[in-house]
């Protein structure tokens, strides 16, 4: 039984880069604890010698030649950006 406290939720919210208000943190602590309780039953399954199943696709990843297959689509890449300048994405200042 794992109960999440407000500080843990604050940390998860930051890792997720989602702003959460103080009241929101308490509500989320309740919701997330409820979900974790729900998945807790997995702990009782015997998985001795069992490899994790990451994909059901019975494939080895295909290889292709390392060559340029597209490009010259700067306008398309930028067309949905909230802010652009001189053919670049504009971000808040990150270096003082």
């Amino acid at each position, binding site marked *: 039984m794992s109960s*999440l406290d407000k500080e843990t*939720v604050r940390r*998860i*919210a*930051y*890792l*997720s*880069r*989602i*702003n*959460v208000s103080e009241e929101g943190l308490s509500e*989320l602590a309740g*919701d*997330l604890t*409820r*979900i*974790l309780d*729900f*998945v*807790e*039953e*997995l*702990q009782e*399954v015997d*998985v001795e010698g*069992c*490899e*994790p*199943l*990451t*994909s*059901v*696709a*019975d*494939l080895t*990843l*295909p290889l*292709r030649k390392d060559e340029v297959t597209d490009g010259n*689509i700067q306008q*398309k*890449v930028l*067309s*949905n*950006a*909230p*802010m652009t300048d001189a053919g670049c*994405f504009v*971000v*808040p200042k*990150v270096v003082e």
Partner: protein
Amino acid sequence: MTDLTKLTLAEARDGLAKGDYTSVELTEAHLKSMDAHRNLNAYITETPEKAMEMAKASDAKRAKGDAGKMEGLPIAVKDLFCTEGVQTTAASHILEGFKPEYESTVTSNLFGNGAVMLGKANLDEFAMGSSNTSSYYGNVINPWKDKSGKDLVPGGSSGGSAAAVAANMALAATGTDTGGSIRQPASYCGIVGLKPTYGRCSRWGIVAFASSLDQAGPMTKTVRDAAIMLGAMAGHDAKDSTSAPIAVPDFEAALTGDIRGMKIGIPKEYRVDGMPEEISKLWDNGVAMLRDAGAEVVDVTLPHTKYALGTYYIVAPAEASSNLARYDGLRYGQRVMDDGDSLDDMYMKSRAAGFGKEVQRRIMIGTYVLSAGYYDAYYNKALKVRRRIYQDFEGAFGQVDAILTPTAPSAAFAIGENEGDPVKMYLNDVFTVPASLAGLPGISVPTGLSAEGLPLGLQLIGKPFDEETVLRVGGVLESAANFTAKPAGQEG
């Protein structure tokens, strides 16, 4: 003249081929029906001009003797498929106004086969939900009513697609299914929904939720329609490394109606505690129908079934937390930022404003189970249990050709019900999630009505890449059940 919106996909295809009507006429009829049913909120974006353009081009193409598998047939596209130049929202505020510069492989295949797009169908935000009540663009209302007449959910996440087909606002629709998002709404709306094998349809250009589970499929009025549409959607795509490099069979040819000697498995673990009597009876009736058609019914065991939901609600949020990291307010989508804000401030404000509650919850659960110190206890453990679930099915399919179960534990419920407790909502997917985790094809076929007069579906699960058996048995179930009920106003 017959009401063109009441045709099945197959009937409309054959009528077009005979010249009984044109794609322009078919498309106009559906656009009118969309106007008349706008209260259901099945579409986020209607594209009537594009539809008419595509219909005219299709009629011209046909006149030259060149007709694809879906030539001239108007369909709805779940708003999770990127469509070139047409707003694609994933029902999220964060993607409001996003106009892809490219076409998803599945829609590209459909349009290449002649299909006409009527609009983009509503869904749960980022396909996370079972009720279509988490869309930023409002709830979808199920065209079916219970005796009280109150508004019911269409199921989710492909709720707009299901409602559009059930209310004759599209001949068929695309859906996507991660844990039941095609099959459960199909059951709630009295239509057919087919989730193909993982890898059958390309995921390229579909807004990603949980990449090891997501799969596109058809939502249609009949099993034959599902066979036709899947044939026009599927195929290997070099742009999706998990897309299977195998040929697409003629799915319609699989509908022989003959299942004599086939073995159908009945998993005892699906008879869950508290299963409503009417669901249990529906299932028993389905068993009897298949037995009467000459199939051999066999008891099978899928011992890890009870752990499927728990596994899913670790694996899917984990993958979602990673996939949804791309919404950063920089490259596309909403940006929220005030003067003097740092990069982190911008990320955090944009994502708080752009994502709804359920999406935020799932991102955070996913972040938690992947974080240092919890990865092994939660995520890795879930992946190991996922293999146990996969092995259960491998064992069962050593004995049987297909497995029959109910699609959902209930009929459609009222809007607002099951809210407030995320886990209660998750229980709707109890019968669909196991096949998703194992990547298996599953179809929901409407076979009966609840005491409240609402549709109920049965699910058939097949072996990997054996959609043909799923469709063949589904076709037999459909004929035997003879489900002819329609929502009020849509009677034939």
